[in-house]
């Protein structure tokens, strides 16, 4: 009797917590968690788009891009998502292969990313380059290339992320591959001495870095912009690497379910315009991949400008990811 009463009251209380508001015209977008956070782009984007379309935009968020694709795979045809926003080019080949996405069919005139963009399924909304961020209070001359970083010995260390669990971690594996090619395993063996630890996600590594535990961390060229704008601190800076920097492009696509919803294509078109793009730089801390009206904060001009953008095609990544991660594991796990 007692247990039943408790369970019943529990269910009742929960029903109250999770009430949903229903509206007539509705667009559902699956995205990652930091997009919809109070300080993320989500709230402003939602407001701007709802004002334009007079509809109801609902974001549903999961942990990150990888979880996003898994969620969609589990839900399959019965997904509620009209749009999935937050995959990157390392995942798009796999996403296409799932057959759960429909062609976007929108005009790509606004879109600009380094190296250009042509894809009939996914539309980019921002991009960034990976970079080694260092603490200027501890390092006066940072490594000038990936080769220098690898060859480095001594007391300065770096925290990186695990490519099996984290996007930047996979980014570094691809970066090393694009610079060292088949010699990547040997390069990893050299780099190993400089690596303090390998964390499961970006936040653990960055936390170690800002708490002073480690002098360098793998992150994005835009990371210093956050510290300069939000904290007025120039302490953390990105190192420019001669070989160029590996790029991450974040994209959105319409699901085969969402293809019937006229709001889907309308949102993607909106996404490439100023209503969306103006919000991106200082909420998502990435570079806009579409048309902006508000000029970028001058701080973004002071950031590292990669001399060369490195990027494998989604197909190359899909075909080799397993082997390259395995290769990394072979060296690092020794």
């Amino acid at each position: 009797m007692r247990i039943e009463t408790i369970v019943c009251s529990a269910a009742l209380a929960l029903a109250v917590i999770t009430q949903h508001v229903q509206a007539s015209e509705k667009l559902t977008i699956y995205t990652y968690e930091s997009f919809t956070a109070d300080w993320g782009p989500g709230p402003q984007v939602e407001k701007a788009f709802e004002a334009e379309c007079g509809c109801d935009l609902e974001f549903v968020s999961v942990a990150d891009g990888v979880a996003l694709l898994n969620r969609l795979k589990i839900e399959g045809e019965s997904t509620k998502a009209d749009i999935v926003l937050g995959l990157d080019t390392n995942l798009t080949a796999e996403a296409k292969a799932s057959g759960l996405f429909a062609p976007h069919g929108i005009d790509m005139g606004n879109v600009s990313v380094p190296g250009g963009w042509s894809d009939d399924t996914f539309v980019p909304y921002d991009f960034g380059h990976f970079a080694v961020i260092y603490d200027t209070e501890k390092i006066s001359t940072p490594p000038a290339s990936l080769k220098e970083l690898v060859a480095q010995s001594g007391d300065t260390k770096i925290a990186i992320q695990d490519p099996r669990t984290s996007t930047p971690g996979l980014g570094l594996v691809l970066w090393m591959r694009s610079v060292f090619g088949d010699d990547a395993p040997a390069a990893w063996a050299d780099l190993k001495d400089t690596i303090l630890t390998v964390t499961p996600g970006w936040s653990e590594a960055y936390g170690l870095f800002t708490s002073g535990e480690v002098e360098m961390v793998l992150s994005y060229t835009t990371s210093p912009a956050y510290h300069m704008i939000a904290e007025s601190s120039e302490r953390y800076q990105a190192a420019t690497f001669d070989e160029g920097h590996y790029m991450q492009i974040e994209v959105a696509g319409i699901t085969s379910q969402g293809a019937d919803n006229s709001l889907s294509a309308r949102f993607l078109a909106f996404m490439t315009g100023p209503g969306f793009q103006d919000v991106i730089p200082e909420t998502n801390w990435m570079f806009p991949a579409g048309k902006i009206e508000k000029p970028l904060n001058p701080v973004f001009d002071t950031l590292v400008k990669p001399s060369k953008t490195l990027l494998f095609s989604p197909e190359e990544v899909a075909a080799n990811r397993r082997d390259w991660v395995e290769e990394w594991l072979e060296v690092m796990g020794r």
Partner: protein
Amino acid sequence: MAAILLLALLCGGAFAGLAYEAVAGGSRSSAISNSRIFGVVRFTLFQAIFSTLLSVVPALLVARALSRHDRFFGRELLLRLFAVPQALPAIVAALGVLALYGRGGLLAEPLGHLVEGRWPGIYGLSGILIAHVFFNLPLAVRLFYEALQTIPHDHWRIAGQLGMGGFAQWRFIEWPVLRRAAPSIAGLVFMLCVTSFAIVLTLGGGPAATTLEVAIYQALRFDFDPFAAVVLTLLQLALTLAIIAGLALLGGRYAEFASLSIVSRRYVQPKAFEAIANILLVVLAALFVLAPMIAVVISGLKSELGRLVSESSVQRAALTSLVLAFLSACLAVSLSFGLVSTRKRLEMLRRNAGSATLAERLCDGGASMILVVPPIVIGAGWFVLARHAGDVFAIAPVMVVTVNAAMAMPFVVRTIRPSFDAAAERHDRLAASLGMTGWYRFRLVDWPAMRVSLLSGFAFAMALSLGDLGVIALFGSDSLQTMPYLLLSRMSSYRTADAAGLALILAALSFALMSLAGRARSGQ
């Protein structure tokens, strides 16, 4: 028995869901090559066994030291503080530990002299062990202390009359109780270490330190291979079962004495030498556990606490966390009570007839097995089922509460079992002869005897659920933001100071819970 069924349903459902997905989607190649799996298993077991030993053996001594003295300054406070680490997300605890022993830590300079050069930090096995002991030593101390409290006061009186020395008391009074409790407490700690994830990766220093849990996570995330995830989970279950079974053999049988407590005073006071040793022991343990917590508090105080507390998202998350934790704790305590009483009834039934039956063991250790099934597996499996059954978002809160309750049960069972068993030994016959059953019996007999441990179990279950991240990340919907979830999301968007502040709030909440339970305890 309902509790066991629920747990079985929880795991079974998850496996069924994943198996369905594996069949429907067709399994790809295994997530982890066979040659490496051996190394992973070896490392998993190695670090877990070491962590368990280092947590449980000192905990035995510390718990005894704490219980030896009638008045131990700050004992209640210490025991409450010892519940806090369980509510901290792993990364917060790891940063706390590193603030002391890390390369940039407080002790880096003196330690640097030892190694002649720059202190390299504690990355590797040592880091994993330190962090695991930080989490599990206080847990084990609390549980052992709880077990020691069940020693009837008459034993102490007799010990006093016989003039037993410290060693004799240990041998004849304390050790039998501790030995009886040890296998299940060690088993619990072992399971927590086997499934450790973020700590092993962050402090392990590289992928050489990989546990099965990491492999399972990888199988479900990047490779999305439900088949591999299920196989690895079963492997983890089997290994743990084998170890736990081995531990059970070590546990002695010990029959409680059916006697009523009539005196509440200690008749034996430790000698000066022992008193000093006890104090030293407790101070060392307290330093080890409290120092990283102080580091967490200090970095939390550096954040803008005022702004954080007034933010509506923080208030909402705190409220959501508290409501979910409260419901989980209700469920966990009710189910644990059912389990504990069923186990006792089974034991009574076979009175003096051989060793424990399977059903009995199920009620005891069986419930703990849920800890070895990774939350991501339970989450993903049920997610698949829920998708076929209806609205995923609607069941999310129910899932979070149920899984949290299930995860807290092993702790609650261990907290309340000693006092339940002791009370049953004392009152069962009397209650039976008076024909007292059901609610009347609970209200008049069990409740007064178990009030203290039930409350402490409840508070502990709540503290555990407060810190839980498990399933919430998978079922994440914006209406269900909890404190740890908010903390990690602040951390993942550069707001490290906010995260530190939230960690402090989380620690304060769980400390407040333990204090409330403590207040109720002393107010009886």
